[in-house]
């Protein structure tokens, strides 16, 4: 499981890849020049770092993702609950709602998620 976090700017860079993949590394660095005003080499440095972390890959100069955006952030939230709440989701939820009450819409959405949750073993 990936246990790394993205910096805010790295996250924006990753969004560029997710929104535009497959994209050539050259195009990507061109986009970074426009958006971040980076030098060409800088975007290659960041790309290489994220490839090493197993988020993206380059094959024949084309960048694709190994994890989708949703996959990555759902892994992130699970890692967060693991690290801070011992993997216990209810206690995370209790902490999350302690300061600010959930809205009716949020409660309804949660109910729906639970209702549609596939039961693995019939007890």
């Amino acid at each position, binding site marked *: 499981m990936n246990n790394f976090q993205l910096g805010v700017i790295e996250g924006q860079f990753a969004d560029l890849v997710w929104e535009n993949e497959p994209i050539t590394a050259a195009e990507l660095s061109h986009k970074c020049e426009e958006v971040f005003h980076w*030098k060409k080499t800088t975007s290659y440095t960041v790309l290489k770092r994220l490839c090493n972390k197993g988020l993206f890959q380059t094959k024949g100069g084309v960048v694709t993702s190994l994890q989708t955006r949703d996959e990555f952030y759902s892994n992130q939230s699970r890692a967060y609950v693991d690290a801070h709440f011992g993997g216990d989701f209810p206690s995370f939820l209790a902490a999350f709602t302690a300061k600010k009450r959930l809205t009716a819409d949020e409660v309804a959405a949660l109910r729906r998620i639970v209702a549609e949750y596939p039961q693995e073993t019939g007890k």
Partner: protein
Amino acid sequence: MTGLFTRALKMAMVSGWIVLPVCLLRHVLRRCPKKYTVCLWALVAVRLVCPVTVHSSLSLIPQRLELAASKLATLPLGAIWLAGMGAMLLLGFFRLLRLTRRLKEAVLWKDNVWVCDYLPTPFVLGVFRPKIYLPSCLTPEDAQLVLAHEREHVRRLDALWKILAYGLLCVYWFHPLLWLAYWLFGMDVELACDQATAAKLSGQKRQEYAELIIVWAAPAAPVPGFGSHGLKKRIRTVLGYRKASRWSLPVFLVTTALVAACFLTSPMSGMDAPVQEAVGQFFSQLDTVAAPQ
């Protein structure tokens, strides 16, 4: 080279002395606005930079210290001195290089403010065209307070003063008192900056600002930043901010002038002999005048 070393060592031994009275004065004047007390370090800098000193009967620099310094300086230590200086410069250079490599990924936010991932602390870089760098994980509200602090650094030219201080430390690296001075100077720079920032904030904002200092306290660096030293003292300075009394400036000026007169000068060397001679002559003439006819 050894000649130069002799001079530097002598200057350092004699000049290092001034760190102690400055520390004392800094303590005595602790209720003065920090923008004054931080200037006390200029006394140390002047003493280190200026090889020629005015001789004065007010001087409290022990003459024995100068003698000991000249004796020590005859040892062939020039190579060690140079090596230490080179090491200090290289260290500073590599730290800067590592930092700028990271800063390539910085993104312009507004004006001269840049945002960058994985910065340990906010800071100002550059003297002539200073840029402010903020860690990307700051929330917008926190960023405003941190920015106020960093802008104050820019206004006060702290980047320049810190570079100068580091330069002097590179030259006088062998003097322990000057390491103390460098550390305390870094703290006073932050205190002065905190105080100036706090003066412009409301009570509620001041509380938030104090909390930010705790969060972003970072190890001492040769660039003015947000964290660095003396956490407790900084919190006390910010939360206990009071408008300075109008007596603080005259008191500060008089005491500092006095200390400068006593420690920025050299003792009147060889004054005693001519004076005694003159006094002796005076008395012998008196004798001849008063002699019975």
